[in-house]
């Protein structure tokens, strides 16, 4: 009986050791995965550059500029006002304001900017900072995205020329 108990104890000890090894191996795998993920993120800054959102495509072949904003962000409001001021009916691009809060739609009221209030879509587009301007080609594919820090930067990104600026 004694010998049986001893061997049982030894076996259970061996089992524990094996488990520990398994855990260590698993932990290593997790760490390697973490490191790989970080390296991958570092290689592709902020977000993958090619994404597609069908609803930002257009039938007339013109690109769409989407300004992604958040609610409690004075700069977002200022940039939205600027976008509303420069977006006219005769421009060769479409303008969209994307936000998750209804209130943001007021920032572009009575303008050519189409407000899209859709929290899920904001999550899909997944910008890091706000306000960010994202350019979509006519087929709804993302061309680029940039954080917009000032009205001048917004104008430059939209390539609004000086004549249009003066009339705005």
């Amino acid at each position, binding site marked *: 009986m004694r010998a049986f108990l001893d061997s049982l104890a030894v076996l259970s000890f061996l089992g524990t050791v094996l488990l520990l090894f398994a855990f260590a191996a698993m932990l290593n795998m997790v*760490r390697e995965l973490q490191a*790989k993920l*970080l390296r991958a993120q570092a290689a592709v800054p902020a977000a993958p550059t090619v994404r597609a959102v069908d609803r930002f495509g257009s039938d007339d072949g013109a690109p769409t500029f989407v300004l992604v904003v958040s609610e409690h962000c004075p700069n977002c409001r200022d940039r939205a006002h600027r976008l509303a001021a420069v977006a006219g009916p005769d421009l060769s691009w479409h303008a969209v304001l994307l936000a998750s809060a209804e209130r943001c739609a007021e920032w572009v009221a009575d303008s050519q900017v189409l407000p899209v209030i859709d929290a899920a879509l904001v999550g899909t587009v997944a910008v*890091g900072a706000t*306000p960010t301007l994202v350019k979509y080609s006519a087929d709804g594919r993302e061309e680029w995205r940039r*954080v917009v820090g*000032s009205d001048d930067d917004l104008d430059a990104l939209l390539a609004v020329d000086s004549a249009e600026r003066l009339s705005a």
Partner: protein
Amino acid sequence: MQVRAPNGRSLTVDGNPQPFIGGWAYLLWAHGPKGGTRFQVTPAGAAEVVSKQMGEWSKYTVREAQWNGGRLLSLEDPQSGTNMVWVGPHNEVSTFFAGTGVPFEAFMDILALFDIQDKPEGLTMLPRAGSGMTLGNLLAVNTIDQVCSVQVKPVEEASETIPRSAGRRVRGGSMWRVDERDSAGAVQTRSVFMVNDSTATTVVAARPDDTRFINVVESISCRLG
């Protein structure tokens, strides 16, 4: 008073007879595969207030955005370069980029290598696993108004600056008086260098013969945990 340094160590400064003018400012370097980057960590709003007081604000092209619950500021000086600042709820972290037209993304990509936690007791920015970054060359700076400035370094990073001569024995360490004199022999700057088992501290007097400076030197103690 105990605060948290950006590298996660606790900084305890006791015995100053007068309070410090404000929160601690930290300089530190992050070294990585692409070289070194210098960061400043200061109380929130410090960069803006200081540059406005220095009259430098007007020459900046200021850009602003929102990121991770804080403000992102780009202060572009056409003459020298661009200061990028992330202003959190309690503290801010800033770094300098040479050149102009630096996109916010450049700064965000660097900050993303660190786990940044902004708390009232201090902002910590520990390198994320796999980022390949290490922190070093910490310098913590504070001021007692009109009396002195206090600069604290980890003792292991100050070994080459410790004098070979034996200093005066004080409070678990040694102390040296350092006077810089002008050509006429008058004391220009008076400072005291103190070393204990965790810190190397320099206290620089605002006026060389101020007794309040002596009082600070006689009683202050700085420790890094």
